[in-house]
């Protein structure tokens, strides 16, 4: 098997209402990733994205003048797949199916954006769902539960009840990430906040407050994967893909099934518990070996859930783990979302977490974890999701 490595990272400017098409944004992020690596864009022979991605592979192929496309794959759902798109790209390279694979996400989804009005995604669900419910929405919408914030709030409250987690724990993670963002020139939110600021931010769906929420913005991010052997001749210090894992799980949009299978946040919760053991076991590593974690969080409650399920702390200890300062750069034992995350840097459906993991392992992050050698990235908990382990190539 060929060992895969991330050799290029690319991202657009992140902002609200950029008035650019998602194809345009994707092309900029992808060509930047190629430039970063020193690989001509014409060498790309594979694309991986979310199944809800609106930029088609063939459109990228045409725009980039690619002669051959050997690998196309998509992951289920949205932010759950943020790590898995890189994992799939790595599998394609490892198997020899393709040699130069891009994982990407592009969004023109600000409130006012035309794409936000797509019937299937983006924008605000209540603004476009209509009132005729044919599918899983019939079990939520008639009761006024329609937004991811509503659904995550119901998950968060149960966790609070089960373990004594406090809403302030989510707030502390929001504060840590906004501090990280305040030092990141690419972040949309450049002002640090205090826990008082968090407490004063308006409630969206209690216990979730505005500052717990991911941003509504436009932009795109991409990473380029090739073989480690080839990577060593390229421009950047390679970052090895040490392992990847996916798992199926009930999704937050279907809470009846979610609570029926994960009601106690126990062994079966989201499948991440077993998946984490596979990930670390196969790589011969443990959570204690991880220097920096990028945890995709549509809402900050996803951070303690992921920390617990992937084994960074005991079940139920995610809140106190955050309260201890462990997730805050530079002094925390496991800095989380050092670029500022989805409430600080930008919301690219979690895919902006991938270039940050790579920067950390290159030693080039704005909030650099000293001597970082192992990075962990996971997609959003409460989706079908997955995770990757990345390693600095020394």
């Amino acid at each position, binding site marked *: 098997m060929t060992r895969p490595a991330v050799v290029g990272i690319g991202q657009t400017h992140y902002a609200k209402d950029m008035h650019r098409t998602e194809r345009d944004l994707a092309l900029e992020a992808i060509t930047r990733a190629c430039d970063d690596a020193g690989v001509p864009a014409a060498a790309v022979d594979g694309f991986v994205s979310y199944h809800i991605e609106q930029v088609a592979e063939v459109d990228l192929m045409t725009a980039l003048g690619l002669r051959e496309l050997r690998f196309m794959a998509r992951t289920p759902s949205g932010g759950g797949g943020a790590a898995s798109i890189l994992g799939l790209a790595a599998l394609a390279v490892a198997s020899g199916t393709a040699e130069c694979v891009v994982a990407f996400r592009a969004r023109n989804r600000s409130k006012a954006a035309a794409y936000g009005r797509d019937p299937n995604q983006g924008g605000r669900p209540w603004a476009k769902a209509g009132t005729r*419910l*044919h599918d899983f929405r019939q079990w939520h919408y008639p009761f*006024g539960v329609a937004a991811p914030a509503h659904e995550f709030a119901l998950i968060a409250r149960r966790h609070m009840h089960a373990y004594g987690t406090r809403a302030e724990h989510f707030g502390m993670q929001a504060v840590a990430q906004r501090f990280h963002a305040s030092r990141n020139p690419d972040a949309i939110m450049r002002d640090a906040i205090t826990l008082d600021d968090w407490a004063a931010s308006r409630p969206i769906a209690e216990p979730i407050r505005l500052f717990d929420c991911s941003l509504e913005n436009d932009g795109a991010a991409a990473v380029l994967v090739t073989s480690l052997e080839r990577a060593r001749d390229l421009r950047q210090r390679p970052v090895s893909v040490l392992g990847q894992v996916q798992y199926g799980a009930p999704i937050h949009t279907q809470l009846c099934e979610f609570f029926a299978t994960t009601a106690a946040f126990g062994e079966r919760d989201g499948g991440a518990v077993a998946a984490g053991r596979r990930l670390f076991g196969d790589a011969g590593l443990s959570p204690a070996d991880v220097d920096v974690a990028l945890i995709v969080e549509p809402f900050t409650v996803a951070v303690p859930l992921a920390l617990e399920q992937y084994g960074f702390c005991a079940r139920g200890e995610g809140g106190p783990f955050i309260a201890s300062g462990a997730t805050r750069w530079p002094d925390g034992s496991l800095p989380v979302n050092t670029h500022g995350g989805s409430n600080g840097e930008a919301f690219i459906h979690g895919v902006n977490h991938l270039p940050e993991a790579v920067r950390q392992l290159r030693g080039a992050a704005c909030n650099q974890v000293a001597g970082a050698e192992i990075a962990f990235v996971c997609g959003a908990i409460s989706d079908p999701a997955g995770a990757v382990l990345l390693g600095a190539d020394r």
Partner: protein
Amino acid sequence: MTAAYPRPEPVAAADAEFWSSLRAGELRLQHCLVCDTPRHPPAPICARCGATEAHWLASAGTGEVWSFTVIHPPTLPAFSASTPYGAVVVRLDEGVFMVSNVVDCPVEELAVGQRVALAITVVDDDLALPLFRRA
């Protein structure tokens, strides 16, 4: 407000069965005919034993609040005038979970573990909802 109410128009016959029984004044749950496991939402296969045969049994309509949230604007147009309002996940005593609302309960009194009983609420001729009240 009624015009904008989000309205189930299921494709699946079993989903339609669920809503029509509510219009008739009863909460009924789909149960596996082989192993008797209740399931909600309705589904074509028993996830426990794999059997496809199912039948419908009246629920006792009792359970507990498993989780709750208090929802603030923005939200669905039909609910905008009601904010802030509570939404809950109820665990019925049969073991299935439902998203719902607790009627006659101020949002500050919502609590996990609160015992609740069915309070079918008629929205109009075509829609009745399985809401709950404190028991």
